[in-house]
C-alpha cells in the first residue's frame, strides 16, 4: 500500500507509540507560526472539555514550513494545561508531528493525515486549518456527528460576511449542488471531519496531481457524496479571512480547476443526479453578517467589459457564439442598466466546463479567461444584494442555484459532444 512510502520513519514510530485511538484531530501547517500555538491550545482544550474519555491524538502535519511551525506546535501541545482542564483529562495527551514531502514527492498533507488515521484505526478524524478563528467547540462540533451519530463526512458552516467567499457562493456551491444533487455550502472546506470508513476509501484513491493542490480537499466531500456516505453540515463559528488564494486567478486555479477535472474522472457520478436535496445540519445554522465593507464595484464592471472585449478571440474558442453575443450585449449595457441573468452565468460556466473537458485551449488559459466573466457576475450580484436583508440574500443565492440545476441538461448536452466554439 502507498502508506509506507508516505510516512517517514520517525512519524511511524510516533504512531506506533500512540497505538489505537478513537479520534484524530489533524492540523496541517505551512508557515503558520503566527497562529499555530493558539490553534493547538484550542484543540487540546476542546478535546479535554468535550471528549475527555475518548482516546485522541493531535496530528501536526507540516508541509515544509520555514518558520518552525512544527516545533511550535509540538511545544504548545506539551505545555501544561490549566488546572481544571488537567483534572478533567484522565489520559495522557497524545500528539504526533511529522513533515510530509513537498515538491519532490507529490504528497499532500491530507494523505499523511489519512494514512495516520487509518493506521491508528480512528473512528473519526477532524482536519482543522491553522487559522486564528479555531475555537475549542469546533473540535466537538466536527467530531460529534461522526463519532456519536454515525455520519461519514461533516462539512462546515461559518459565520462570515455575505460578500466574502463569493467564488464559493456563486460558482462552486451552485455547481457542486447541481452536479451532485446535494447542497453542500462549503465544498472546499479546510475544516471538516470524516469517518474511518471514508478515510480508508480516500486513501485508496489516486494521488493528487500537484503539490499544494486543493484537489484533495475537494475529493473528500465528492467521494462522500457520490459513494453513498452519510454527509452532514455543522456550524462552527466565525471564520477568519484565509490567506490562501486571496487573489482571484490563483483561487480559480485551485478550486475550479480541480472541480472541472473531477467531472472528467467520474462522469457517471454527477450525470445522473437531478435537482438537489439539503443536508442535515448540526449545531446551528450558517450565519451571514453584513458589516460595511470596502468595495470597489466599478472595477468589477470595468474589468468585465474590457475582458469581454479584449478576450473575444479567446472566449470564442471556449463559448458558443450565442453565449458570447449575450455577454457582449451585457457588457454594452453600461453600469446602471447592467444585467447578467443567472441562466447566462450558468450557461457560461457549463460551456467552460465542457470546453475544459474537450481541451479546446490550454486549461490554465481557460481558467484565466473565466476571471473577467466571474467579475461581471459578482458586479451584478453585489448590485442586487448590497442592501438587501438576509432572507432576500438567501433567496437570491437560492435562485442562482436553481438556475444551475435547471440548466443541467444543457451541460450534459455540451459535455456529450455538440461542438462549442468556432473550430
Amino acid at each position: 500500500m502507498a502508506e509506507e512510502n508516505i510516512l517517514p520513519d520517525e512519524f511511524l514510530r510516533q504512531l506506533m507509540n500512540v497505538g489505537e485511538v478513537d479520534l484524530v484531530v489533524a492540523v496541517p501547517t505551512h508557515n503558520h507560526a503566527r497562529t499555530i500555538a493558539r490553534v493547538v491550545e484550542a484543540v487540546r482544550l476542546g478535546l479535554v472539555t468535550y471528549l475527555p474519555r475518548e482516546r485522541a491524538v493531535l496530528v501536526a502535519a507540516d508541509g515544509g514550513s520555514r518558520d518552525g511551525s512544527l516545533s511550535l506546535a509540538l511545544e504548545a501541545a506539551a505545555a501544561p494545561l490549566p488546572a481544571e482542564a488537567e483534572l478533567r483529562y484522565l489520559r495522557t495527551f497524545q500528539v504526533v508531528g511529522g513533515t510530509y514531502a513537498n515538491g519532490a514527492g507529490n504528497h499532500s498533507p491530507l494523505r499523511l493525515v489519512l494514512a495516520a488515521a487509518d493506521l491508528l484505526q480512528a473512528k473519526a478524524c477532524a482536519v482543522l486549518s491553522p487559522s486564528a478563528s479555531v475555537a475549542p467547540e469546533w473540535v466537538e462540533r466536527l467530531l460529534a456527528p461522526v463519532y456519536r451519530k454515525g455520519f461519514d463526512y461533516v462539512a462546515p458552516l461559518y459565520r462570515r460576511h455575505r460578500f466574502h467567499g463569493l467564488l464559493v457562493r456563486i460558482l462552486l456551491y451552485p455547481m457542486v449542488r447541481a452536479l451532485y444533487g446535494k447542497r453542500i455550502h462549503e465544498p472546499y472546506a479546510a475544516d471538516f471531519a470524516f469517518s474511518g470508513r471514508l478515510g480508508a476509501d480516500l486513501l485508496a484513491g489516486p494521488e493528487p496531481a500537484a503539490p499544494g493542490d486543493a484537489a484533495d480537499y475537494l475529493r473528500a466531500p465528492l467521494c462522500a457524496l457520490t459513494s453513498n456516505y452519510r454527509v452532514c453540515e455543522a456550524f462552527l463559528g466565525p471564520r477568519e479571512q484565509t490567506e490562501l488564494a486571496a487573489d482571484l486567478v490563483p483561487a480559480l486555479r485551485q478550486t475550479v480547476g480541480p472541480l472541472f477535472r473531477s467531472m472528467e474522472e467520474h462522469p457517471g457520478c454527477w450525470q445522473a443526479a437531478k435537482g438537489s436535496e439539503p443536508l442535515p445540519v448540526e449545531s446551528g445554522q450558517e450565519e451571514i453578517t453584513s458589516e460595511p465593507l470596502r468595495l470597489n464595484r466599478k472595477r468589477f464592471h470595468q474589468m468585465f467589459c474590457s475582458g469581454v472585449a479584449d478576450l473575444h478571440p479567446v472566449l470564442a474558442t471556449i463559448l458558443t457564439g450565442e453565449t458570447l453575443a449575450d455577454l457582449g450585449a451585457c457588457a454594452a449595457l453600461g453600469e446602471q442598466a447592467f444585467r447578467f441573468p443567472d441562466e447566462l452565468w450558468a450557461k457560461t460556466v457549463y460551456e467552460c466546463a465542457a470546453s475544459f473537458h474537450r481541451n479546446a485551449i490550454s486549461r490554465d488559459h481557460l481558467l484565466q479567461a473565466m476571471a473577467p466573466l466571474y467579475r461581471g457576475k459578482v458586479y451584478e450580484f453585489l448590485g442586487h444584494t448590497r442592501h438587501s436583508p438576509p432572507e432576500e440574500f438567501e433567496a437570491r443565492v437560492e435562485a442562482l442555484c436553481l438556475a444551475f440545476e435547471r440548466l443541467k441538461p444543457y451541460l450534459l448536452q455540451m459535455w456529450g459532444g455538440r461542438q462549442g466554439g468556432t473550430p
Partner: protein
Amino acid sequence: MARPPTTTDALWYKDAIIYQAHVRAFSDSTADGVGDFAGFAGKLDYLQQLGVTALWLMPFFPSPLRDDGYDISDYCAVHKSYGSLEDFRSFLDAAHQRGIRVIIELVLNHTSDQHPWFQESRSSRDNPKRDWYVWSDTDTRYHGTRIIFVDTEMSNWSWDPVSKAYYWHRFFSHQPDLNYDNPEVREEMWRVMKFWLDLGVDGFRLDAVPYLVEREGTSCENLPETHAVIREFRARLDAEYPGRMLLAEANQWPGDLRPYFGEGDEFHMAFHFPLMPRMFLGLKLEDRKPILETLQRTPEIPPSCQWCLFLRNHDELTLEMVTEIERDYMYDVYAGDRSMRLNLGIRRRLAPLLENDRRRIELMNGMMMSLPGTPIVYYGDEIGMGDNIFLGDRNGVRTPMQWSGGWNAGFSTADPESLYSPLILNPVFGYQAVNVTSQQRSEHSLLAWMRRLIAVRKASPVFGRGSIEFLRPANHRVLAYVRQLGNERVLVVNNLSHAAQAVELDLSRYKGRVLIEMFGRNLFPRIGDLPYLLTLGPYQFYWFRMRKV
C-alpha cells in the same frame, strides 16, 4: 509465650506478604455455621504453602455485631462464636510455628455502647468512668465536623436518655467515642494492647486513628494531639515489645497521611488508599497516567516505614480519594449497575470487577507485588472468588471461603441454611467452579500462579525495600519502572492494554547488563546503545533482573 524461629528482623513487615481474612469466613470446625479459630488453625498449612508470611485478622472481639465486629464490647476476650481465648492462643502458636505472623485489629477510637465502660460512664455524672467518653449538655460543640456515615447518621452527637446528656460518636450512634484527653483511657488502652502483645500477637491494625482527639474550631481529624497519643503508644511499644508493628487505617490523601509516620516514631505502616482505585482506572483507560501521577505525588516516608498496597478488601472499593471526574468514570466502567455502588465506592470482589479475566487479574496482582510497599491479599482473591451483590451492605464480599466443590464448599459441615452467609452458587463463580481443592490439582490454576508469584517476590528483597524509578517510554500504555536495592536492580514492565504492545525503553543507564526474566529465569538480550525494544502480549508483564555479568 513461645517465639518460634521466625526472623527477629525489626523490619520484617517490609518483606511481608499479608493475607487479610475474617475468622468468621474462613473455616468452621464446630459445625455451627460460623468460622472459628480452631478451623482457621487447620488451614494454616494452606497459607504457608501459598507463601503468606503474615495474617491480618478482622475484629473477633465480643460485640453486638451491629457493625460487623467494629463495635467492641470487651477488648480482652474472643467472641464465643469464634472460640475461646485458649483457641486463639493455640492458633497463634500454630501460625508462628509455620513462620506466619499475626496482626489483629484494634478499634481505638470508640467502643460499642454495650461495653461495660460505657454502661458505667452513662450511669451517672459522678461515675469514675464518666470522663472516659465525650459528654456534652448541648449538641453544638465541635460544630462543622463532617459526618462519616452520611447515609445513616444525622449528627455526631446523640442524646443518651440514661444520663441525660449528649455523647460524641464519629461513626454509628451505637459506637460512642472514647475520650483520649483522659490519661486513664490511654492507660487502659495500652493495657489492652499489652494483653494481646503478651499473648504473642505481632502487630495491630489501628482502626479510625484520625478521629481520636477533638478540639473546638477544628475538623477534629488529624489533630496534633492525636499524633501525640500515637507517639506515646509507639514509644511504649518500642520499649517493651521490639519487633511488633503498628498499621494505620487512615483513609486520607497521601499528603495528610504522611504525619502518621511521624519521624519514624508513630506508625510503621499505612494503607496507600489513593493508589488502589487509580490502578483500576489506569487499567480501564489503558493509560499509565493515573498510576504514575499518584505514585509521584506520594511523599517520602521515613526509612523504617512502609506503605501497604492492596487491590481489594472487606470494604467497598473506595472512591473517596479520587476526583469527581475519575469517580464518574469508574462508576460508568466498573459499576454500571447502580446496586453495585455504595458509600462512594464499588462493592465487588477483584475477579468480578475484572470480569473474571485471568490476564487482568494476574496483571493487577503483579503490579501490586512489584510496586513499592507491602502487598495484602484479600482472602479468596487468590483463587478468584466471586461476590454476591444481593447481600446487603458490604457482605457480598465476605462470603465463606470456598475450599472444595462439596458440602458447603468445605467451609462447614453444618446445614447450608445455618451458615452465617449464603455461599456463591452461580456456575461461573460458584464454589463448584472456584475452589481451593480443584485449583491445587492444576499447575495452571490461578492459585498455583499466585503461589509462584509470591515465591518470586519473596526471593528478592528489592520489592519490599528497594527504591523506585519510573521510566517514561513513549508508549503510554506501558507502565515501566526500575526497583533498586544496593546492587540489585529489577526492571518491571506492565502492559495496561488489551492489545499487544511494542515499547522502546531507554535503559542507557544500565547499559551492558543482561536481562533475566524472573519467572522462567531465561536470558533476554543485553542492553546496548539503542533503546531496548520489548513486545508484550495483552495485559502481560515482565519482571527482569538486570545482571551485570
